[in-house]
C-alpha cells in the first residue's frame, strides 16, 4: 500500500512537471496582461524542436565519427525548445501587442499553427530518417533519473525527492524563482502593474510594450521547454504524433487552479500529474480507466466554478488580461 502511494507520488511528479512548466510560462505571460491560449501550440513547437535539436546534434557528431555527449545534447534540446517557444510567443506578441489582434483568437491560431508545426516537422523528419525520429542512448541517458550522491541514497525520501530527471528540478527552481520575482523584485512589481492596469503603469513611466513582449516571449519559451519534456521524457525521445495533445490546455487550467501563483502551481501540478496517471496506480473496481482521464478536467471545472462563486480581488486573473492597450485610445 505504502509502496503504491510512493510510486504514485513519483509518477505524479513526473507527469506534473510538463504541466508545471507550461503553467509557469502562462503565469508569466498572464501577469503581463496577455492571455495566451497558444500554450498547447508552443508546447508542440518546443517538443519537436527540442527533439530535433538533439537528434541532429547526434547525427552530426556520429557522421563525423564522434560519440555524442548526453549533457550537451540535453542543453541543445533545452535551448532549441526554449527558442521555439519564444518564436511562437513572438508571433503572438507581435500580433496582439503591436498589431492589437484579438488575444483569444490569436492564441487559438497559435495552437492550430503550433500543433501543425509539431506534427508536420515530426513526420517530416521521421520520413527523412526512414520511418520515425528517435534520439540515441546518450541523450536518453541524460533525461533519465538522476543519481544525486548521498541524497538519493536516503531511504524512502531519497527515492521520493532526489531521484528525478533534471527537468523536474529545473521546473521547481523556476517556480521558486518566479515566486521571488513577483513578490520581492522591482521588475516583478512593475510587471504586475502592467498586467493589472497598463494605463497606470504607463503613466508611472513603465515601458508597457517592452514588459509585455519580454514576459510573453520568455513565458512562451518556458512553455516550449514544457513541450520538450513531453517528447524527451514522457515519450522517451521518440516522436509520437500528437504527443502534447491536451497537456497545453491542462497547463492553462492549472494556472487557474494555482490562482496565478507559481508556488501554488507546484502543488497543483502534483495533483494534476497524479490525476493523469492515477488509473495506473489506484484501481477502483467498476471505474473504467477512461473515466480517470476526465478527472483533471472535471477538477478544473470545479475550481473554475468555485473561484467564480467567491470573487476574490487578489487571487484572480490580472485585470487587463485579454484586453490590448493603446495609449492614445480615446
Amino acid at each position: 500500500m505504502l509502496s503504491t502511494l510512493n510510486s504514485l507520488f513519483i509518477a505524479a511528479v513526473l507527469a506534473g512537471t510538463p504541466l508545471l512548466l507550461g503553467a509557469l510560462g502562462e503565469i508569466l505571460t498572464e501577469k503581463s496582461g496577455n492571455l495566451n491560449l497558444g500554450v498547447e501550440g508552443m508546447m508542440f513547437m518546443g517538443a519537436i524542436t527540442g527533439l530535433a535539436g538533439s537528434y541532429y546534434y547526434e547525427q552530426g557528431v556520429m557522421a563525423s565519427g564522434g560519440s555524442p555527449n548526453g549533457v550537451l545534447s540535453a542543453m541543445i534540446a533545452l535551448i532549441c525548445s526554449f527558442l521555439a517557444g519564444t518564436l511562437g510567443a513572438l508571433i503572438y506578441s507581435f500580433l496582439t501587442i503591436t498589431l492589437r489582434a484579438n488575444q483569444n483568437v490569436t492564441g487559438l491560431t497559435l495552437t492550430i499553427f503550433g500543433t501543425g508545426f509539431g506534427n508536420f516537422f515530426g513526420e517530416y523528419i521521421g520520413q527523412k530518417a526512414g520511418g520515425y525520429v528517435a534520439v540515441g542512448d546518450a541523450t536518453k541517458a541524460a533525461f533519465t533519473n538522476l543519481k544525486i550522491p548521498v541524497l538519493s541514497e536516503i531511504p524512502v525520501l531519497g527515492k521520493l525527492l532526489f531521484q528525478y530527471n533534471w527537468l523536474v528540478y529545473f521546473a521547481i527552481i523556476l517556480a521558486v524563482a518566479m515566486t521571488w520575482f513577483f513578490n520581492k523584485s522591482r521588475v516583478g512589481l512593475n510587471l504586475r502593474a502592467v498586467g493589472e492596469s497598463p494605463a497606470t503603469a504607463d503613466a508611472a513611466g513603465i515601458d508597457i510594450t517592452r514588459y509585455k513582449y519580454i514576459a510573453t516571449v520568455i513565458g512562451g519559451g518556458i512553455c516550449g521547454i514544457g513541450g520538450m519534456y513531453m517528447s524527451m521524457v514522457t515519450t522517451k525521445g521518440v516522436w509520437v504524433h500528437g504527443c502534447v495533445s491536451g497537456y497545453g490546455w491542462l497547463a492553462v487550467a492549472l494556472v487557474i487552479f494555482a490562482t496565478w501563483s507559481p508556488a501554488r502551481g507546484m502543488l497543483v501540478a502534483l495533483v494534476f500529474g497524479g490525476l493523469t496517471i492515477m488509473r495506473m496506480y489506484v484501481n477502483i473496481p467498476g471505474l473504467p480507466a477512461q473515466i480517470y482521464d476526465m478527472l483533471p478536467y472535471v477538477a478544473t471545472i470545479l475550481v473554475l466554478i468555485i473561484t467564480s462563486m467567491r470573487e476574490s480581488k487578489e487571487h484572480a486573473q490580472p485585470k487587463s488580461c485579454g484586453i490590448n492597450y493603446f495609449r492614445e485610445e480615446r
Partner: protein
Amino acid sequence: MAKEGEDLGETEKLAIKMNKITKTFGKVVANKDVNLELREGEILALLGENGSGKTTLMNMLSGIYFPDHGEIYVHGKEVTIRSPKYAFSLGIGMIHQHFKLVDVLTAAENIILGLDGKVTVNRKEVNKKVSELAQKYGFDLDPTKKIYNMAVSEKQTVEILKVLYRGADILILDEPTAVLTPQETDKLFNVLRNMKEDGKSIIIITHKLNEVMAISDRVAILRKGEYIGVVNTPETDQAQLTEMMVGRPISLKIDRPEVEEKEERLQVIGLTCLNGEGVKALDNVSFTAYGGEILGVAGIAGSGQKELCEAIAGLYPSIGGSVLYSVEHEGTYIKERILGLKPDEISRKGIAMAYVPEDRLGMGLVAGMDMTDNVMLRSYKENKGIFVDRKAPKALSEKLIEELEIVTPGVGTPVGRLSGGNVQKVLLGREIACSPSVLIVAYPVRGLDINSSYRIYDLLNEQKKKGVAVIFIGEDLDVLMEISDRLMVLCGGKVSGIVDPKEVTKEEIGLMMIHVDNQAADDVSGEVDV
C-alpha cells in the same frame, strides 16, 4: 487682458513654455497652435469647457500623448517628451482625473511603481519614506493600505504623493476637486499653497470659476482646442473668464421655473441595499418625488447614488424597503410596488419611468450600434412577432436629430462615434420620447460643454413643467443648488437631509455630505412615513 511675457523680469523664469502645439485624433483637432507659459513658483489655472482640449494639452507635457507640431521648453530648454518616464526626469508630474492606480497593490507600492532602484524592493524603507513625505505636506496616509480599500480622497493623496516622491517640481492636476467635498477641496488647496511656498510650479485644470479665483495666480484659457489668452487672477472676474471660455457673454444662471401643481409620483421608503462586500451601500433611504419638481441628489462620489438609481430602476438588488410608484388608473392614482421588479416587468405594469444612467455608452446606449438600434433598445419588444420593427425607431431617430439638433452624419452612424453632448441628447431624447412620469438622470452634464449642458437643463425643466418628477443626481453643487426645487444629500448611503437649496449655504451642504446627523436623518424618514 495680460500680454504674453508682460513684466517678465530677469528673475522670473518660465518653468514651462509650450509653443504652437497641435494635436489631432483622426479628424478631431484637440489642440490647435496652443501657447502656454508656466512661471516658476506660481499656480496657473488652465480653464476651459469640457472638450476644449485642456487634458490633451497637459497629457503632452506628461508624455502620454505626442504632439503633431510645436515645441515644448522646460526651464528654458527645448525638450522632446516621448514618455511619462522622460517627463518625470524633467520634473513634470501629472495627477490624472481618473486615478491611475493599481487596485491590488498598496499605496507605497503604487508610489514607487516604475522607479529605478535596486533589484529588490525594500518595502519597510519605502513605507517609511512615504510616511515622512506625507507628513511633510500634511497628508494622512497608511502606506500599506491597498488601493481597493481606499476612499476617493485617499486615492487622490496617493496620486499626489506619487508625483512628489519622484521629486517633481512641476505639478499638473487634472480636475482634482471633481471628486471632493467643499471641505476636502479647501484642504487640498492648502496643500497646494504649501507646495507653492516650497517652490513648486503648479498647473490646475478646472472648469469651476470660483476655484480658479480662489487658488490661482494666473489663468490661461482654452476654447475649442485653441488658446484664447492668459489673465492675472486678481485683475479679472468670473464674467470676463466666462466670456473668454465660451466665446460670448452668457449668463450662467440656470432657470428654476415654478410649477404650481405637485402630484406625488414616487415614494421610496427605507430602501436598503448591500454592495459587493456586504456593506450597506444604501441604508434606510426614504424620500418622495413629486411631479413638477426637480429633486436634486448631492453627495461625494460613491455615497450610494448609483445604487439608488439602479435599485429604483430595477437593476440593483435590495434587502429592504419599498418603492411605490403612482400610476394613473381611470382618473385615480394607485400605488404600485416596483421594488424588486426587473426593468421589463416594471414597464409591463404600464409604468413609464425613464432613466438616464451615468455610464451612457456602457449602460444607456450600445456604442457600436447605430441610432435606430439604440432608439429601439427600450421598446423593441412592443410589436408582435419574432422580427424587430425598425421603421418606427428610424422615424423617431430622425425626429430626435431634428428637434434636439443632434450632430451626426446620419441615423446609420454608430452612436459611439458621436461627441459626448450628442450622445447624451440621443439618450435623453429616447428616454423623454416614452413620455415618462418619473425621469431619473445621473450626472447628465458630465463631460459636456456649456452649450450642451444648458440644452440639457432646458430639457429637464421642460419635463418638469409637463408635470414629470425629475430626480437629478449631480456632482456640481453650484448647479444642483440652482436647478433643484429640493435637494437631498447622501452620505455613506444614508440620507443626511432634504433641504431647500434657497435656504442653505454650500458649506452647510458640504458638511451634510460628510456627516449624518442621526436626528435629522430620523426626521427625514419620519416626514415621509405616511
